[in-house]
């Protein structure tokens, strides 16, 4: 479980997160939703320590991450995987080397063991035989899948995904959602997903946190999101023609 308690973050005069407290549960896909610019990415980057919070604490299973030094954080970092919005694959390395990279840095596994793990991860994301390709040779959907494979190569307990299906067609987006869902359940990870895609929300939203202008505005799950009387949330949920018709 990951817990954020009263975290605030500002950039200069711009107060981006206002006293946000939120819990993300183990074995579930925990979604953070909200408009563009509402602070989802900043919240996620605060959780994993890419941004330092101004105030508040972040706990990874009761370990206070926000108070740790760089070296103390290392242990938690080895337990977490992250899928960046643009994939962030190392473009000087092949797919195989990308996935192998955390293993090379942190384990003493032999080449054979590492290759086996790489193939296991590639299998999971349905990309057998992509080992020798470079990131520049992959399609958008493949990049996301390789990025997922790299994120899970160390068998993490915590998985963070920033807009895992932005820029993908609905069908491929659905495949990625399912993949995240299956991984979360199979390996009992605490998964946090940033999204503004209502399809994912309805499909995999075990818990949903709606961020509005830097504040936690609503919490719930996919069963309840369609019938609340929270105005800002309704504006967000029923913004597209498709969802309007559902109402």
């Amino acid at each position, binding site marked *: 479980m990951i817990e954020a308690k009263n975290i605030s973050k500002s950039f200069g005069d711009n107060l981006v997160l206002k006293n946000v407290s939120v819990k993300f549960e183990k074995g579930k896909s925990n979604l953070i939703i909200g408009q563009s610019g509402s602070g989802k990415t900043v919240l996620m*980057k605060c959780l*994993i*320590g*890419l941004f330092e919070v101004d105030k508040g604490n972040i706990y990874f299973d009761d370990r206070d991450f926000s108070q740790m030094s*760089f070296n103390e*954080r*290392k*242990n938690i*970092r*080895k337990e*977490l995987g*992250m899928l*960046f*919005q*643009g994939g*962030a*694959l*190392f*473009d000087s390395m092949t797919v195989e080397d990308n996935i192998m*990279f*955390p293993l*090379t*840095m*942190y384990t003493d596994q032999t080449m054979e063991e590492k290759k086996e793990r790489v193939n296991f991860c590639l299998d999971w994301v349905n990309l057998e035989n992509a080992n020798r390709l470079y990131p520049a040779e992959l399609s958008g959907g493949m990049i996301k899948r390789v990025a997922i494979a790299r994120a899970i190569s160390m068998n993490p307990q915590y998985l963070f995904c920033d807009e895992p299906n932005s820029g993908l067609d609905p069908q491929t987006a659905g495949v990625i959602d399912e993949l995240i869902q299956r991984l979360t359940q199979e390996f009992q990870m605490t998964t946090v997903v940033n999204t503004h895609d209502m399809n994912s929300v309805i499909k995999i939203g075990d818990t949903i946190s709606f961020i509005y202008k830097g504040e936690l505005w609503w919490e719930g799950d996919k069963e309840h999101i369609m019938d609340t009387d929270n105005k800002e949330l309704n504006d967000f949920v029923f913004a597209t023609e498709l969802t309007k018709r559902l109402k």
Partner: protein
Amino acid sequence: MISRFGSYLFLMFKVFRKPDKLRVYRKQLILEIYNLGIESLGITAIISIFMGAVVAIQTAYNIDSPLIPLSMIGFTVRQSVILEFSPTIISLILAGKVGSRIASEIGTMRVTEQIDALDIMGINSSNFLIFPKVSAAILINPVLIIISMGFGLMGGYFVAIFTNLFSTHDYIIGVKSWFEAYTIFYAIMKTIVFAMLITSISGFEGYVVKGGAVEVGAASTRAVVWSSIMIILFNLILTQLLLS
């Protein structure tokens, strides 16, 4: 600008650490020696030959008194090549070639979140990306400079062969006379400092990029400009320290 210098020092403090995994570092080091050093051999050789040749012709042109022996030409070429042309001019050329390469490579990694990806894995990204480049340059640039000296002297020799300004015999005598090994030491010291300046400044410029492709381009220009300015400044300081 002062705060920028502060963040430069702060970053260098994180760069100069023991690498996380020595085996990986060794591999990176070899790759960077190739990328930064071996790949610069061609341009170093060409520039050095022409430099040596020009110095030889200019010196011959300036000697108009029969009282000055023609061996002065070889002597002058050797001194200027070792003291100034090879270490400083070649380092300036490398600042352009290597500096822009480093800044744009690291800058691109920054804007595509590859550096964030390293950070969240718990890797000291500044050390991982910049340290191999700094240490590779410190190792390989002195080699390049020594090679450059060789080609510079060869340039003067070619002038002796292809013109009748002076003979190869005079030239060789000049090159061999009053040689002090200390000048080589001085040149190598300079080169090492310049190598550190080029790689660390360019690494810094790339590492702190914010934005996109335009900013990466701007960073790579800044890297070249600042490395060059610092080379010229440190050239003066080191010369004052080591030669006076």
